[in-house]
C-alpha cells in the first residue's frame, strides 16, 4: 500500500511510464473493455482526474430514454485498455436530483445498455473527509472492487493537517491512494492499479450492512477520521480573507456588479484589434478567391456565399474567447459559487433558487449546457422553470448580432469611465436576465405553483486557476463556435446564397454593375420571401432584407449576421466594405431613406433579446422536459414577446429620437 510520500516519489520518477489516449470515436471500440466508474462529490476533483487519465477529448454520451449526460474515455497503459465512466458529482447515492439518480441506477446496473461497472474509483477531497467519507461508505456498500482516491492531499499538509491513508485503508478494506490531480502527483501508482481493477479488494458488505441511517453513517465517518488521524484542518485563511471582502454586505454587492460590468466592457474594449485582423483576413480571402477562380457563378458562391457568410460570423471569435475566458476563470477560482450565494435572494423572489443561478449564468455561453446543468436541481418545478427561462439569458450566439448592431449604430462615446457601447451591451444582457426572472416568477406563481425545494451549495476554497486547463476549456468552447460556423452557418450560407441569386433579373444594359446587382437581388427568391413577410414586420421598422435574416435566423441566431453579410456582399460589387458600414449606408430605393437607423437597430436588438431562434435549443428543451408541449409554449411566448417588445421599442424610439 503506497503512502502519500511514496506516491510523490513514484510520480516524480515514473512520469511518462504510461501513456493515455483519447477515447476512440466509435463506441463499439470500447465494448468489451472492463469499465471503471468514477464516483465522488461535486468539486472533489473527479473531472481533473478523468482528464488526466483519459486525455482531454472526452466524449459526451446519452442514455436512451434517460436524459442524463455522462462522459466516458479510455485509459491506456501499454496494451491494457480500460473504459472510464465519469459520473455526475453527488453527495448521496440515493439522491433526488436527476443526475444523482443516474449514479444510483448505474451502480445498480439498472440502465439498459450500460452494464454494471467492473470496479469503482471513488474520489474524495482529502480536505473534507469528515463529509466526503459519508459518500465513500455508501459506495463501498455496493460491494464492487473499489479503490479510494484522495485528491488535494497537498492542501491537507499546507493547512497543518495530517492523514494516515494506511489506517484508512485498513479500516475500509480498500486500497487508498493520494493524488494531486492537476499536478500529476500520485498518478503513476494510480495508473498501475488501473491496469488490473479485478485485483482490487471487494469490500465486504458486512461492514456497511449495519448502517441504517445517515446519523449512524456519519458516526462511522467520525470514527474513521479518528483512526486516520485526520484532525481538523486549520481554516483556509486566504479564502476567509477574500470572502470577508467579496461577501461583505455592501462591498459584496458592489463587487458582483463590478464583475458583471467588467465582463461586458472587456468584450467590447479588448476584442476590437483581433476582430479587425480577422475582418481583413476574410476580405483578403474573398478578393484572392475572385482572382484565382474564373469569374462566374462559382466564384460568386465562394466569395459572396461561403466567405462572406462564414466570415461574418467568425469575426466574433475574439468576443467569444473573452466571454468564455471570463466565465471559466470565475468558475475555476471559485467566484461563481459566491455569485450564486450573493444573488440567491433575488432568485428567491422569482420562485427559483440559487442553484438555478449557475445554469442560468452558463446560458451566457449557450442555453443548451445551461438547460442540462438544471439537472442538478432536485425539485421538478424549479428545474422546469429554469429550463423554460434559460433561452432568455443572452447566449453567445446573440453576441455577434449585438456586437454588429451596436458597433454600427451606437456612438463610441463614453459615459464617465465607461464606454456607451459596453453599457448598451450590458443593458441587453440585463433585459434578457430580467425577462427570465419575470417569466420564472410568472411560471412559479401560475402553471408551476408549489413549494420551494431545499437549496444547498458548497462554497469551495479559492484556488488559483490551472492555466492549461483554462486554455483547454476556452479552446473547446472556441472550437465549438468555429464548428458551428463550419457546419450550420456554412450550410445555411450556401442555401441562402442560392435563394438570393435565383431567379435573376434580365440584364439591363443601362444599369451600372451595382444597379444590376441590386435588381438581381430584388428578383430573387429570398426577396420574394422577405417581401411576403414584410407587412408583419414593418411596424417593427424592419424591411424585407431583415425579414430574410429573421427567417434564416430561426435555425440559429447568428445566421442573421451571415445573411446580412451575404445580402450586402451580393448587392455590393466592390467587396471589402465592412458590414457595419454597409448597414449604415443602405438606402431604401422606394423611400430614399436609410433602411437602418437607430430605432430599427434598437428594435432588432430587442427582437433578438426575446425571440427563441435556435433549433438546437428547442430540440434539447423537448428532450429535457419530455415532450413538445413546453417547447411549443416557450417558442410562441418568446416570439410574441419579441414582436411586442420590438413594436414598442420602434414606435417609442421613432418618436423620441
Amino acid at each position, binding site marked *: 500500500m503506497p503512502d502519500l510520500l511514496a506516491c510523490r516519489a513514484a510520480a516524480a520518477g515514473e512520469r511518462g511510464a504510461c501513456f493515455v489516449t483519447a477515447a476512440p470515436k466509435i463506441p463499439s471500440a470500447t465494448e468489451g473493455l472492463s469499465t471503471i466508474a468514477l464516483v465522488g462529490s461535486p468539486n472533489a476533483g473527479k473531472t481533473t482526474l478523468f482528464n488526466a487519465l483519459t486525455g482531454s477529448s472526452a466524449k459526451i454520451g446519452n442514455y436512451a430514454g434517460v436524459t442524463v449526460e455522462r462522459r466516458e474515455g479510455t485509459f491506456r497503459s501499454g496494451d491494457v485498455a480500460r473504459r472510464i465512466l465519469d459520473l455526475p458529482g453527488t453527495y448521496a447515492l440515493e439522491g*433526488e436530483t436527476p443526475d444523482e439518480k443516474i449514479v444510483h441506477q448505474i451502480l445498480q446496473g439498472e440502465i439498459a445498455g450500460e452494464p454494471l461497472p467492473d470496479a469503482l474509483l471513488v474520489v474524495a477531497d482529502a480536505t473534507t473527509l469528515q463529509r466526503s467519507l459519508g459518500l465513500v461508505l455508501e459506495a463501498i456498500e455496493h460491494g464492487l472492487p473499489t479503490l479510494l482516491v484522495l485528491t488535494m492531499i497537498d492542501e491537507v499538509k499546507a493547512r497543518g493537517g495530517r492523514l494516515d491513508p494506511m489506517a484508512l485503508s485498513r479500516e475500509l478494506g480498500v486500497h487508498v491512494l493520494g493524488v494531486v490531480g492537476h499536478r500529476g502527483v500520485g498518478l503513476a501508482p494510480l495508473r498501475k492499479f488501473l491496469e488490473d481493477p479485478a485485483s482490487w479488494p471487494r469490500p465486504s458488505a458486512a461492514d456497511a450492512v449495519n448502517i441504517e441511517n445517515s*446519523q449512524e453513517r456519519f458516526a462511522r*465517518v467520525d470514527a474513521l477520521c479518528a483512526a486516520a488521524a485526520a484532525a481538523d484542518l486549520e481554516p483556509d485563511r486566504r479564502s476567509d480573507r477574500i*470572502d470577508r471582502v467579496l461577501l461583505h454586505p455592501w462591498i459584496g454587492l458592489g463587487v458582483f456588479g463590478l464583475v458583471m460590468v467588467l465582463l461586458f466592457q472587456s468584450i467590447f474594449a479588448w476584442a476590437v484589434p483581433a476582430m479587425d485582423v480577422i475582418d481583413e483576413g476574410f476580405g483578403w480571402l474573398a478578393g484572392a478567391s475572385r482572382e484565382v477562380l474564373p469569374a462566374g457563378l462559382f466564384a460568386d458562391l465562394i466569395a459572396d456565399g461561403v466567405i462572406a457568410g462564414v466570415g461574418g460570423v467568425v469575426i466574433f471569435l475574439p468576443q467569444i474567447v473573452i466571454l468564455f475566458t471570463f466565465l471559466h476563470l470565475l468558475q475555476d477560482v471559485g467566484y461563481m459559487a459566491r455569485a450564486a450565494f450573493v444573488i*440567491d*435572494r433575488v432568485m428567491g423572489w422569482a420562485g427559483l433558487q440559487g442553484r438555478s443561478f449557475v445554469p442560468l449564468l452558463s446560458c451566457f455561453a449557450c442555453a443548451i449546457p445551461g438547460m442540462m446543468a438544471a439537472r442538478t436541481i432536485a425539485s421538478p418545478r424549479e428545474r422546469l422553470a429554469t429550463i423554460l427561462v434559460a433561452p432568455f439569458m443572452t447566449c453567445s450566439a446573440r453576441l455577434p448580432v449585438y456586437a454588429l448592431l451596436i458597433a454600427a449604430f451606437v456612438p463610441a462615446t463614453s459615459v464617465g469611465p465607461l464606454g456607451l457601447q459596453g453599457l448598451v451591451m450590458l443593458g441587453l444582457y440585463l433585459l434578457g436576465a430580467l425577462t427570465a426572472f419575470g417569466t420564472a416568477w410568472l411560471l412559479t406563481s401560475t402553471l408551476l405553483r408549489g413549494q420551494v425545494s431545499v437549496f444547498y451549495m458548497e462554497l469551495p476554497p479559492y484556488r488559483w486557476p490551472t492555466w492549461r486547463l483554462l486554455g483547454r476549456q476556452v479552446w473547446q468552447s472556441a472550437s465549438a463556435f468555429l464548428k458551428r460556423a463550419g457546419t450550420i452557418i456554412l450550410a445555411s450560407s450556401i442555401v441562402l446564397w442560392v435563394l438570393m441569386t435565383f431567379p435573376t433579373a434580365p440584364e439591363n444594359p443601362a444599369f451600372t454593375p451595382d444597379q444590376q446587382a441590386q435588381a438581381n437581388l430584388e428578383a430573387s427568391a429570398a426577396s420574394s420571401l422577405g417581401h411576403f413577410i414584410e407587412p408583419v414586420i414593418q411596424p417593427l421598422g424592419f424591411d424585407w432584407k431583415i425579414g430574410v435574416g429573421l427567417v434564416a435566423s430561426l435555425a440559429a441566431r447568428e445566421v442573421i449576421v451571415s445573411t446580412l453579410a451575404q445580402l450586402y456582399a451580393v448587392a455590393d460589387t466592390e467587396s471589402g466594405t465592412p458590414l457595419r458600414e454597409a448597414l449604415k449606408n443602405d438606402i431604401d430605393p422606394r423611400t430614399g431613406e436609410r433602411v437602418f437607423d437607430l430605432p430599427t437597430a434598437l428594435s432588432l436588438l430587442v427582437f433578438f433579446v426575446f425571440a427563441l431562434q435556435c433549433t438546437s435549443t428547442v430540440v434539447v428543451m423537448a428532450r429535457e422536459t419530455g415532450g413538445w408541449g413546453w417547447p411549443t409554449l416557450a417558442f410562441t411566448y418568446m416570439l410574441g414577446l419579441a414582436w411586442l417588445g420590438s413594436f414598442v421599442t420602434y414606435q417609442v424610439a421613432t418618436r423620441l429620437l
Partner: protein
Amino acid sequence: MLSLADLEPGSVVKIATGVETGRRLSSLGLVAGTEVRVVRRAPMGDPLELEVRGCRICLRAEQLRQVSVERVS
C-alpha cells in the same frame, strides 16, 4: 427551541439529539450531534453560510428553521 436560522454569524452550535434533518441536509453531514458554525449571512440577508464538517455550504434560512440546535460553549 433555538433553530439554525436564528443564529448570529460566529455562533457555534450542535444539532440537537433526535433531530431528523431530512435526506438532503443529512447527506451534507448535517445530522444530530454535528457541530455547525454560522459563518455569515449573504449580503441581502439570506441564505446563510455554514461551516459543517470542514466544508462551507450555504442554505436558505427557510430550510434551517426546522433544525433545532444547542449552543456549544
